[in-house]
């Protein structure tokens, strides 16, 4: 799905989290929102997912104005920074949550839900953990379960907030490849937030560099490396 952000701004009381920003994300792209802490990455991602509403501006999905569309109707697969798995449910029930929440008319049969959950567990290469609780998983496993749960609703896009934030270097590398693979097989437009420039450069097709609520530069990793548009970008990507 093609995503367009048209002059979006966001104000929290007196602080401006986003000055008007505009951005077009081509369908099927893997996009990194890169920037230091407090630059507005999470805010922009939450606006895309419908968890936050912009103070001004529009969001367009495939050319349709989606600014007022509710979070439920956006069908955005959202992976939260701390994963936000339902702690009182097994992994299986976590992944099945979105399907069970559908209205009866569109809700799959129980057996069909089980089949899809099993398929997703295979996709994240954790076929045997369906009966465990989130507290019984490692950080990397939790991250993959959160990804499977987001994919279960057959989302129109995938939004991830610092998906590799709290993990060690080796697991990060594995999961990066995992996200790349899942992106390539599903073909979903995917936006992930990171403050790690290496991660953004390595993984993304398109990098959006942000600072203090503004977009500093948008471009392919190699273009940003070769031609930083502002002094900020130059220092940030060499840091």
């Amino acid at each position, binding site marked *: 799905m093609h995503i367009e952000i048209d002059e979006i701004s966001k104000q929290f009381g007196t602080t401006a989290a986003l000055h008007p920003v505009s951005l077009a994300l081509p369908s099927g792209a893997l996009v990194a929102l890169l920037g230091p802490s407090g630059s507005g990455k999470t805010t922009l991602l939450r606006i895309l*997912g*419908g968890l936050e509403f912009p103070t001004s501006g529009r969001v367009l999905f495939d050319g349709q104005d989606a600014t007022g569309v509710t979070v439920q109707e956006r069908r955005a697969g959202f992976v939260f920074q701390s994963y936000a798995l339902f702690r*009182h449910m097994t992994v299986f029930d976590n992944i099945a*949550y979105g399907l069970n929440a559908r209205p009866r008319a569109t809700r799959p049969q129980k057996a069909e839900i089980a089949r899809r959950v099993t398929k997703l567990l295979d996709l994240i290469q954790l076929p045997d953990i369906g009966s465990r609780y989130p507290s019984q998983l490692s950080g990397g496993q939790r991250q993959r379960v959160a990804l499977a749960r987001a994919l279960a609703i057959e989302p129109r896009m995938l939004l991830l907030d610092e998906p590799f934030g709290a993990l060690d270097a080796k697991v990060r590398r594995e999961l990066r490849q995992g996200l790349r693979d899942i992106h390539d097989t599903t073909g979903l437009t995917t936006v992930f937030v990171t403050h790690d420039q290496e991660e953004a450069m390595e993984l993304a097709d398109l990098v959006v560099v942000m600072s203090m609520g503004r977009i500093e530069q948008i471009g392919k990793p190699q273009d940003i490396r070769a031609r930083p548009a502002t002094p900020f970008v130059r220092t940030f990507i060499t840091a």
Partner: protein
Amino acid sequence: MSDVSLVRTPPRFRSATGESAGTRWALIAVAFTGLAILVFAPLIAVFVVALADGVAASLESLASRDARDAIRLTLTIAAISVPLNAAFGIAAAWFITKFDFRGKAFLITLIDLPFSVSPVVAGLCIVLMFGANSALGGWLVANGFPIVFAMPGIILATMFVTFPFVARELIPVMIEQGRAEEEAGLTLGASGWRVFWTVTLPNIRWALLYGVLLCNARAMGEFGAVAVVSGKIRGQTATMPTTIEMLYQEYLSVAAFSLAAVLALLALVTLLLKTALEIRHADQLAATHRP
């Protein structure tokens, strides 16, 4: 040889929080003595006096009309005010923890108000507001719906006094859990109502249970506020605590203490219920806590 001696005398590590054995025992002794003097001894005394004239006399006093009416009234009051307060408590805690708004700190203080206001004062406020001498109370009495010296007044007084219990238990738990799980539920397509039933409520169920049990114990035992608003009319508005006090004032100690023993037993059953639930769901409790 040196290896052997190393094995035989391993270095002794003390855990960071480790007190010496003497201190530990002294603390345990103090705690138990305190419990024994302040909690167990009075509890046992109640049962001893209740059974002073034998079990038969005690049971006979409980079978009297006044005692049965009081027990029925107290259970009815608890059955009405506890669920209502549970609902209000959940709503208040939800509102306070899931939304940002001005005056939040003030609202939290307001919830605590019943803890700091004397129950007698609370009772008097209800009498002033709804008594036959007030405009509102006069109108209600004229329309056959008296509040003061009737069941609604007792329920109001009980609810006022026990209001903080549920909300107080829930607020810290809900603050600690944050909003992320609810937001996750919403992004997965669930309605706010569904998220509340399938995510919020299961996550707070233990805190809710504790709050409800405490609220219930207090609701059955409330004396001050109820004494003021109820008028203590025997057979009509006399609850268990107020009846106990009246019997005691009339030197009917077996009757007074028998009823007191029933009240104490009700509280003990509540506590046992809580412990039993904890034991039964120990694994679940452990699994659903954040590591």
